């Protein structure tokens, strides 16, 4: 069972604000799912098994170092929630 402290720690890492109700519910739901998932712990010998992070067996997919046209400033800022002359405005990190 995940404690509410654990849930809050993970929520902070993930930058998610949770209500008290969500903390409780999330703790319960995650615990249930994790209980089920932990069945993979029952699998015996995985020692020495190479983990698969990818099924594609490619190597050295590299791009030539030649520039393309960048986006125009109007397009760059078209979807910005708070566009400013110098770019994307955000609340200052210092005030948090």
């Amino acid at each position, binding site marked *: 069972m995940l404690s509410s402290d654990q849930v809050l720690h993970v929520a*902070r*890492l993930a*930058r998610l604000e949770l209500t008290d109700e969500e903390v409780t519910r999330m703790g319960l739901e995650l615990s249930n799912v994790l209980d089920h998932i932990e069945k993979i712990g029952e699998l015996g010998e995985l020692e020495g098994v190479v983990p698969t*992070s*990818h099924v*594609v067996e*490619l*190597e*050295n*997919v*590299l*791009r*030539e*170092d*030649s*520039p*393309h046209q*960048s*986006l*125009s*400033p109007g397009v*760059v*800022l078209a979807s910005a929630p708070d566009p*400013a002359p*110098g*770019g*994307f*405005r*955000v*609340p*200052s*990190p*210092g*005030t948090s």
Partner: protein
Amino acid sequence: MNVELEPVIGLEIHVQLKTRTKMFCSCALSFGEEPNTRTCPICLGLPGTLPVTNAQAVHFGLMMAMAFDCEIAPKSIFHRKNYFYPDLAKGYQISQYDIPLCSNGRLGDVRIHRIHLEEDAAKLVHEGASGRIHDSDSSVVDYNRGGTPLAEMVTEPDLRSAEQARDWLNLLRVTLRQLGVSDVNMEEGSLRCDANVSVRPRGSSELGTKTELKNMNSFRFVMQGINAEIARQTALVQAGEPVVQETLHFDPVTGRLSSLRSKEEAHDYRYFPEPDLVPVAPTEAMLERARTAIPELPAAREERYGRDFSLGGDTARLLAYEPQFGDYFEATTQEATAGVSPAVLANWVTELRTRIGASSDPAESKVTPDALAVLAALVTERRINASAGRQVLDTLVAEGGDVAAIVEREGLAAMDSDEELAGIVKAALEANADAAAKVRDGNAKAMGPIVGYVMRETKGRADGGEVGRLVREQLGI
């Protein structure tokens, strides 16, 4: 408690690679363009975009690996380093983690633990009157720099003083410049240096608690920062107080260090293999291409200048570390006639360097290596004296031309007839009888007016040493 303490220093260096395009997209690198004009869906982290690795960045990484005698990973992979910050468009940085491209190398006396490839963060500009992070309500993000290729180098803690750190960093800088992989400009941020500093009783083999120093963006600040931290830690240890592991921020204005992240949560970057990229497994062709691209490096060149040209340490290093002057020096040795020593040529190259500036390329000056070699030969053969030689060099720097013609035009040839000079010396002694008497009485300083007279009469062509000899001869001393 008053034991003798020894500083232990390791460096973490970020080198912006001099590719044409970014690490994972084809935007051209930015050099002060308007904000966000060097961005595309990929480096803005737009939904659905994917990274593709820049071949040239890998090539530069391999060149560095070879230049620093590193082991090259047969198969290195990229990870995602996850954290939230506005300068990080995707919410993670793509960086090499448990299998870096290169490891276990060396430059000079310092072992290099690892070198890995990653992408640079964007720039966060703080809005508000003071421009300081804590006083402003908002910031603006410019993603031009975001995604610039970086090689991160981590050294072993092999340095023992701030001066040594500075000198090594300079060797690294000139080496990287010679490799052509980076502009290595600390002020412009293409070379960035953090330092891990600890102190321990001299002779101990254990490491003390280290702190990490950031924001030292010049060679001088690296020295100042490290020295300040050594002093701070030494005082703590001498007072019996513990050193706390923390990250310290160097303030170039006050020269002081302040704790950066003491209140921040412990970092948990949740690294995992980047599923959008495939491994880099250098092929023999890639390795060969990197191998052949490596020029002679400064340390090797310094040694060669000592060995082959018998240049003294300082001169050899100067010419090796500023390869444009080294190249030029070697060109003069090709042109020089027998009897002119490389040390003399090197001396004239440093004279030239003083005149055109260390950052200039002598090959682009008006002084050809041939002209400088001829000049050196004339002086060596005493056909002009040293000061006339410098005067010729001034003319060459200003307008170029033929050395012999300049000597002729400016009337700088040394007196060929000893008799003529002897006559002028005789006249000088007569005109300065008082001074002559003092010299005869053993006051060498009184020689001044006599020599001055001779130089005036000869328009400076007389060899100073020869004038002195004739004065003493004629006075019978």
